[in-house]
């Protein structure tokens, strides 16, 4: 056992120590300790870390997933496994084209795996009805299009689609869920505005409200902060943390910015060229070695109170690949 209190406190997973989260924080702390113990041995075997460290129970599991787009022979993700832990924020990071979004689509059953299965709470997602899956698992795609003239509130009501039958009217619980989602996403003041009149950041908040109205246990977000200004980026990440802390929602989020992932996520999955290169807490994953091998940059990593801080130095030429 090499874990000492100082590394523990600085790891991303143990930052949330408000009273209401005491029990889970204790769990995570335990998990971190466990993982710290295997840290030394993992350097050589980064792709299968999940089994080496018992953590909180998995809710969404991808087993030996091979994912490819229709009409293409080359799989984007080649036989990878991933167990998303219940009630934590997991960030998928990796360079462009590493398969982050593809993995997310595979987990959401938007892309049928060529091989392998995705289990949500032990059940194959492919065997759940489309609406039943959508009541448990929400996915916000990277680029969402909508008519310009739809209002924020109308958009958010569409999030209730999986909860309504073909002929069902809007019920009281729909109204409540929509109201809550709009409040949580902090776009109450935009309720009546048409989407076409909003800024990129405001639009993103509206879409997040829509997926929140779906009222799912698991939320998959594909690059929700890309192209947003810093204010909206922080707002989005704050929503994600609130969901975890107050509603026990499991969030898997693709993030372009690894430093953002280090700061806000409890677990990081590093992907490179369709392979899972590492899985663990931010301090375990965000290392100079990983930045060099996965992101091909030379960088200095300092562990500060907010988690690892990255100072990118220069790109490493990839003549060997």
């Amino acid at each position, binding site marked *: 056992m090499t874990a000492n209190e100082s590394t523990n406190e600085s790891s991303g997973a143990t930052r949330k120590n408000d009273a209401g989260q005491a029990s889970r924080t204790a769990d995570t702390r335990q998990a971190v300790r466990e993982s710290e113990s295997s840290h030394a041995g993992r350097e050589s075997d980064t792709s299968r870390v999940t089994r080496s460290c018992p953590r909180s129970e998995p809710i969404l599991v991808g087993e030996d997933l091979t994912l490819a787009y*229709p009409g293409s022979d080359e799989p984007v993700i080649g036989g990878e496994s991933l167990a998303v832990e219940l009630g934590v924020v997991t960030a998928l990071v990796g360079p462009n084209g590493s398969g982050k979004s593809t993995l997310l689509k595979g987990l959401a059953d938007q892309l049928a795996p060529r091989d392998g299965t995705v289990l949500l709470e032990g059940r194959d997602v492919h065997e759940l009805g489309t609406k*039943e899956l*959508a009541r448990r698992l929400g*996915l916000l795609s990277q680029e969402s299009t909508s008519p310009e*003239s739809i209002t924020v509130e109308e958009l958010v009501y*569409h999030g209730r689609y*999986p909860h309504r039958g*073909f002929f*069902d009217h809007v019920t009281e619980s729909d*109204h409540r869920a929509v109201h809550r989602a709009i409040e949580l996403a902090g776009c109450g003041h935009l309720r009546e505005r048409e989407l076409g009149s909003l800024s990129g950041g405001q639009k993103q908040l509206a879409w997040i409200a829509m997926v929140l109205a779906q009222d799912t246990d698991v939320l998959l977000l594909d690059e929700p902060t890309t192209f947003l200004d810093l204010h909206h980026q922080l707002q989005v990440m704050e929503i994600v943390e609130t969901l975890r802390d107050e509603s026990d929602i499991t969030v898997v989020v693709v993030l372009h910015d690894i430093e953002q992932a280090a700061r806000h996520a409890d677990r990081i999955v590093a992907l490179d060229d369709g392979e899972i290169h590492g899985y663990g807490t931010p301090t375990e994953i965000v290392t100079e070695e990983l930045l060099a091998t996965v992101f091909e940059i030379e960088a200095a990593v300092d562990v500060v109170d907010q988690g690892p801080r990255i100072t990118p130095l220069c790109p490493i030429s990839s003549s060997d690949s």
Partner: protein
Amino acid sequence: MSGDEPGVAGSAATGPTADIRRLGWLFDPGLVTVVLASTLVVVLGGLVQVSFGAYSMTPSEAWRAVLNPDVVFNTQAWNAFLLGGEVPDMHERSLIAWNVRLPRVFVAVIVGMNLAVSGAIFQAVTRNELASPFILGVSSGAGLMILLTLVVFGSLTAFLPLIAATGGAVAFLIVYAIAWKGGTNPVRLVLAGVIVGTVLGSLQTALFFFADDVGIVQSAIAWTTGSLTGTDWQQVRLALPWTVVAVGLALVGSRQCNVLLLGEETAKSLGMSIEKVRFALSGVAVLAAAASIAVAGIVSFVGLIVPHIVRNVVGSDYKQLIVGCVFVGPALMVAADVGARLALNPVQIPVGIVTGLVGGTYFLYLMRKKSNLGEI
């Protein structure tokens, strides 16, 4: 009707106001204006149609002939009109109004309604601003069958309405089958529709060469550009049931259209069985288009522009859009038919020519005026 989201008012509804809010979107000022204006156009157009012709009446005579209580409240008369029974004795003017001229107006209403609704649905299904009821091969399939019937199988002319409608529906199924490869998408559908349309269109044009009678050619042109000449209660009886079904389903399906407009990925992640919904909605749209083809031939342009005109006023919410189309389609069609029947009196021209001229001109005017016209 299903799928009622509060579109007008603000916060969450509670208690007795919920019912009012549920239908609140119907009272959107834009929608109400569109509905009232369209109804006015239909009534005025109908009055003109009833007044003028070989047997002329003054508008007040026409008005009284139409509102003649002996006809309006006569079950035997309605039995004759809607079920094809014996027409009872009535005043000459009422007979002309009710048995000759009004049915044509009603057919125009039915055709306009069907085409507008069909076009609106296809624009959502294909997410394409240029979609019309005929984008997935319906018109070319119907057109080919019309030509085949008139030129080759002359003995089947009595069944032409049904053959044309069936030809359109079969062409749609062929297009869908071609576009299907473990699922489909709007681009594949539209491409397949254009290509099947081109192939069938060539065959149709080729068949014109084998028409040896100018009467047959004129008849073929009337059918392939759309005409209401000679329509009466029989056409109303033929198309009305399908129209009721298609429009009803379109209203029910409007929420699905709204979700489709959020894009395929979002619709899927919301749990929509997208292939089923897309096929079902297309089926409804083809039913509507086929019903209009059966009674009026292939009237182009109405299904393309009416949804844009309505969208321009009420926005892209399909619940409002479909309701608007149910009224604006008939308005355009009835107004165009006034021109088709009376402009070159006594010669009648196919109404499809007038819809192109009237509708096209109005559409160009809108395009000049509005910068964002045509966005779905």
